[in-house]
């Protein structure tokens, strides 16, 4: 992992090339993370891959996280790995939720956040971006085949968002076995 000073250097260099791309860094538990503007994520990942000193050529994982109630709400994490030096760096795209402002939307019609897809440059992101879309509702512009991968195709709702209920059924005891349907009926 690049150490804290190296991380700041990387952030500064990227911001020189693509102004405003890196909006923050943090370094904890020996892991380096760049917080990035989602619209420039392709350029950042390409820079990290192609620059001679960096060479993070392996995209290990693309996954999402919901930081509700923090703003920006979503984070799409790209775990990069340099296989020669065995160094990892994480790029977190800080994605805002467009449904936060503007009144309550009917189910299934809320505006969805958008992030450019990196699938054409990093083929491993294909299924993983589909999973982020399926679980969080983040649309990846330019993805060749963006549809649900884990839930049924016609499912409504983004299950791993923090405000999505966990689901399931109440446990049936004698005191509520008449209210909860479906026991022997």
């Amino acid at each position, binding site marked *: 992992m690049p150490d804290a000073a190296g991380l700041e250097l990387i952030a500064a260099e990227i911001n020189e090339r693509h102004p405003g791309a890196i909006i923050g860094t943090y370094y*904890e*538990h020996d*892991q380096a*993370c760049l917080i990035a503007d989602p619209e420039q994520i392709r350029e950042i990942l390409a820079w990290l891959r192609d620059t001679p000193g960096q060479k993070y*050529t*392996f*995209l*290990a*994982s693309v*996954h*999402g*996280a*919901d*930081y509700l109630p923090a703003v920006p709400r979503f984070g799409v*994490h790209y*775990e990069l790995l340099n*296989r020669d030096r*065995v160094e*990892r760096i*994480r790029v977190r795209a800080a994605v805002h939720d467009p449904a936060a402002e503007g009144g309550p939307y009917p189910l299934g019609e809320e505006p969805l956040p958008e992030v450019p897809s990196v699938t054409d440059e*990093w*083929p*491993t992101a*294909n*299924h*993983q971006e589909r*999973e982020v879309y399926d679980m969080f509702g983040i649309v990846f512009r330019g993805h060749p085949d963006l549809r*649900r*991968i*884990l*839930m*049924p195709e016609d499912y409504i709702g983004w*299950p*791993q968002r*923090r405000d*999505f209920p*966990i*689901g399931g059924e109440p446990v049936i005891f004698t005191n509520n076995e008449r209210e909860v349907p479906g026991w022997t009926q």
Partner: protein
Amino acid sequence: MSSGRSAPAHGADVIARTEAEVVGTSPVERTGADEAFEIEQELMTINLGPHHPATHGVLRLLVALEGEIVRDLKPIIGYVHTGIEKNCEDKSYWKAIPFVERMDYLSYFFNMQAFCGCVEKLLELEIPPRAKYLRTIHLELNRLHSHLVWLGTSALDLGAMSMFFYCFRDRDRILDIFEMSTGQRMHTRYFQVGGVAEDIPLGFEKKVRAFCKEFPSRVDQYEALLTNNEIFLHRTKDIGIVSRERLLELGVTGPLLRAAGEPWDLRKVSPYLAYGDLDFKIPVGTVGDGWDRFIVRIEEMRESVKIIEQALDGLPEGPWIADDRKVVLPPRHELGTSMEALIHHFKLVTEGFRVPPGEVYYPIESPRGELGCFIVADGSAKPARVHFREPSFVNLQALRDMCVGGYVADLIMNLAMLDPILGGIDR
């Protein structure tokens, strides 16, 4: 049909090779007709699964066939999606361990290690050396278990039914060992944050050593059945080759990548637990066909036996779980005498320990590849986000490259050699 398969160049494009062969031996050309008119064949889309005799879980494949050649392949997954990651957000860290165990249900110790290792990193908690060695022993036994089940079911898919019985016979011996130390055959919940839940009983070492002494001869028996078997060679040699660069682009890790010639194993490049102290080799293939994947896993089984024996030799004495009472339960005999121990026990059991806010991605080498656990902690006793980077999920993207241009029967073989575990893919 004359197969006419010549060994392709390393990393040759499967599609081009097979098309050239098939068109070259088409009936039209063999009769020497002057006009080589194009045979128009329609693409037939068939649906393989989610319930099918290939015992690899509920994977559904939409296969576009031209005759018997696979032209396109689309995997459809999600049939065993269990919402484990979402469920973990509802549970305290201890309670999440049995949940994450059931993701990749053949390598349950690895799931536990990824999760516990990630939490320990978030807590900056150092586990004692005995716990590291015990974890390593159980992890390698689990690797053996996973490879044995893979071997049995793959051979069953290819038609060699007796391998299934032999492999499951040995697998039952490993499960006996697990039952001895952890109390349960599968899904043992043995790793605890800070170490392992209980020390190993007397007689465990003797039993494991007896197993390790006998197991290499068993592997020899399996190799005698399959490795030089002509039918097996015909089915696996030079089939399903994907170049190393393409595999790296697709994010594939594990035995698939090693079979293609890339010596990448997280146990060696970034050692964790006791792997840094132990001496073992990483088997690496050359061509990356089905036979290489098979032989890489067989050799990995032999190396795992060596690792287990070395770990038993070097097993240090000492505590099997860390000392930090804020995170680890106090020993039971203290509960009767010490008030602090009682309070700690109470808080840990009812609420659980709190983890300071942070995010960590912790990768380990599971039998299928890089298994990474990503946890976002928000300062409370429950994780805010748990995500597992499952190797099978990412490796599945390579199935299309392996199968397109080959026959349907080769698709089954490629699926078997890919070693997917649908529980890990769907989570």
